[in-house]
């Protein structure tokens, strides 16, 4: 797909701008940079640059814009839809060395970070200072820049919302190299179109995030999780909208199947505290006193016991949380390790259709004779459904995969859902986005893309064609 190959002159010009140890060309670029975490979408950049600053990125972009060279930005490469793969070659800017936490502003409750800071580093930094950065995607080794680019929300979305709700300001380099400051430390903003919110979730197609001001909340002093076993998945998930109705405000409601827990046990080489039941809900409650947290979770625990739960287990100490949540954090890798290849469907549906949708994936698994394990955020309707190739031949796998995706996205749409809850559209899911939102919305998106990137150089071929 490399239509626009860089000339030797262009490569030399870039080498003039960047110190030798931070620029790699052609065969010097490792295999890792040709794909993301899920694989399936491949393409090598022609030049890989580890960028260090806004000014440097601006300088590179000015040159690339003038020379019409495509540019793809990559964080830690943990994406799952090929968004950070250089499918048209060109320059790849890797942000992982821009990994400094620049400022903690305790008066405005904000933290200012560079895009290459990892989510786990940010979470730890916030906690050490008595704050919580609430967005909590499962992939803790993702960069915050990549995370803002997909708007992945993670596990605490039920109570705290998603990444978008915590981005106050962004420094962005536009495709022509211009640097703009969007938003800031301000809490409210009714000043024109929110360009900041367009950048969030734009998967690197509109601008390059070089700095972010994020909102923090005071760290809740106590938290307790409940692990609730059920005899079957449907009873478990059917309980979720009812739990929400109890107004107990859990921070997270995750669902998990025994099969997936057993994969995680194998993968981590560690036993989960309970695997006697077919399905589990995992809920977390937080607050500033144990009494408050207990009164919240007891309401939910009693409801669960009265409505089909086998038991309710209390996950209250750091060791118990580690035993349960480390398994939850390893699900994606564990399913991946259980099969030859897999692809995923990250649909989001209204909460009251989660049970219907999971039942449907079970039906499909039977109908297509294929393994479809799943887990996800029952509390916000975002499911992670994995289709496993196992022993299937390549052609049969591709055919089944395509038919299954069609069926699942169609069903999600019937329920009023969307193609992606948090992984994004990238390269892999463009067709499904087009089908779901229709030509009018795609045209609007094309117009926005054109306004930011008239030459179509930044992350070409992603999100929209």
């Amino acid at each position, binding site marked *: 797909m490399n239509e626009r190959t860089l000339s030797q002159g262009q490569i030399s010009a870039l080498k003039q701008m960047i110190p030798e140890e931070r620029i790699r060309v052609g065969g010097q670029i490792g295999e890792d940079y040709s794909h993301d975490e899920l694989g399936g979408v491949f393409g090598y950049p022609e030049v890989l640059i580890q960028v260090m600053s806004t000014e440097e990125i601006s300088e590179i972009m000015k040159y690339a814009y003038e020379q019409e060279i495509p540019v793809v930005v990559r964080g830690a490469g943990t994406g799952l839809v090929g968004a950070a793969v250089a499918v048209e070659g060109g320059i790849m800017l890797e942000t992982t060395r821009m990994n400094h936490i620049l400022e903690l502003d305790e008066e405005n409750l904000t933290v200012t970070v560079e895009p290459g800071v990892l989510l786990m580093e940010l979470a730890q930094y916030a906690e050490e200072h008595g704050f919580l950065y609430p967005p909590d995607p499962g992939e803790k080794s993702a960069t915050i820049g990549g995370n803002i680019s997909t708007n992945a929300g993670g596990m605490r979305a039920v109570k705290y919302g998603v990444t978008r709700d915590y981005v106050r300001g962004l420094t962005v380099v536009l495709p022509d190299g211009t640097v703009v400051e969007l938003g800031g430390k301000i809490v409210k903003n009714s000043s024109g179109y929110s360009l900041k919110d367009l950048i969030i979730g734009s998967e690197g197609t509109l601008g390059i995030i070089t700095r972010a001001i994020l909102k923090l909340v005071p760290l809740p002093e106590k938290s307790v999780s*409940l*692990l609730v076993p059920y005899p079957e998945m449907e009873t478990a998930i059917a309980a979720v909208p009812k739990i929400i109705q109890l107004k107990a405000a859990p921070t997270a409601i995750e669902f998990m199947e025994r099969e997936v827990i057993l994969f995680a046990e194998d993968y981590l080489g*560690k*036993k*989960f*505290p*309970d695997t006697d039941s077919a399905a589990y809900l995992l809920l977390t409650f937080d607050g500033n006193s144990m009494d408050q947290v207990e009164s919240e979770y*007891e309401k939910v*625990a*009693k409801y669960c*016991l009265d409505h089909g739960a086998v*038991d*309710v*287990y*209390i*996950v*209250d*100490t750091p*060791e*118990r949380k580690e*035993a*349960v949540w480390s398994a939850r954090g390893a699900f994606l890798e564990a399913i991946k390790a259980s099969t030859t290849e897999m692809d995923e469907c990250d649909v989001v549906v209204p909460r009251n259709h989660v049970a219907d949708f999971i039942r449907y994936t079970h039906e499909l698994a039977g109908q297509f004779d294929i393994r479809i394990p799943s887990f996800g955020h029952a509390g916000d309707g975002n499911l992670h459904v994995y289709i496993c190739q196992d022993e299937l031949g390549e052609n049969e796998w591709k055919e089944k995969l395509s038919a299954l995706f069609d069926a699942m996205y169609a069903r999600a749409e019937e329920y009023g859902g969307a193609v992606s809850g948090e992984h994004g559209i990238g390269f892999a899911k463009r067709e499904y986005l087009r089908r779901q939102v229709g030509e009018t919305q795609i045209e609007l998106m094309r117009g926005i893309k054109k306004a930011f990137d008239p030459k179509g150089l930044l992350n070409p071929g992603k999100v929209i064609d």
Partner: protein
Amino acid sequence: MKILVCIKQVPGTTAVEVDEKTGTLKREGVESKMNLFDLYAIEQALILKKQYGGTVDVITMGPDQARAVLMEALYMGADRGILISDRALAGADVLATSYTLAQGIQWSGEYDLILCGKQTTDGDTAQVGPETAEFLGMEHVSNVLKVLKVEEGSLEVLENQENEVRRLQLPLPCLLTMEKDANTPRLPSYKRKLEMGDRGVEVISLKDFKDKDTSHYGANGSPTRVERIFPPEKNTARQMYEGEPKDLAASLGQLLKERKFI
């Protein structure tokens, strides 16, 4: 099979201050929890109960608030809790604690197997389990990873010896102390909590013991005294070296020689 697990309530955090005058931990106002190692012992006991039938009792010594760890063990699946609580028992060292536990155990009943965590996270001596066994005249093994099987009159265990794992056979009754991460302890059940309420714990004191001589208990019965306990000095001085790996290695070598480490 009648099993007893010895457990202890310890401070919930490692950031506990030490009272330099008395040499004891300042426990007031500090949250507490069950000693981590004891959870492995409870789990092992409950696994054996499921495999071979029988009962699991739990015992602890402490003030009334230590009832909480007994309740937690009951919510995990234990059948009966015994709290040894008496002012006369305060200030006990390893010997007096072990003796007190042995007296409490003799009051409680006859057991085929007694399980302990291999050590506590506050005292850290790892001696109370074995000493209790000596007072009870029982065989004992420490650092047990797993009980492999129980047969008529004996059981087989894996014992962690750091560099090797030994498979041992012991006659019953015996006492085992469980190694860290020996298993994944089950979680306390809220269902059991609702069912049991605050029932299930019996409280005993010195007057229930066969040996009522107060000079054998608490500070009076403790031949060891902590002379001084103090937080280690913190040294935060540091020197940064920068440069090429080769030069850095040379500087490090030089420094280690100067300080006579090599």
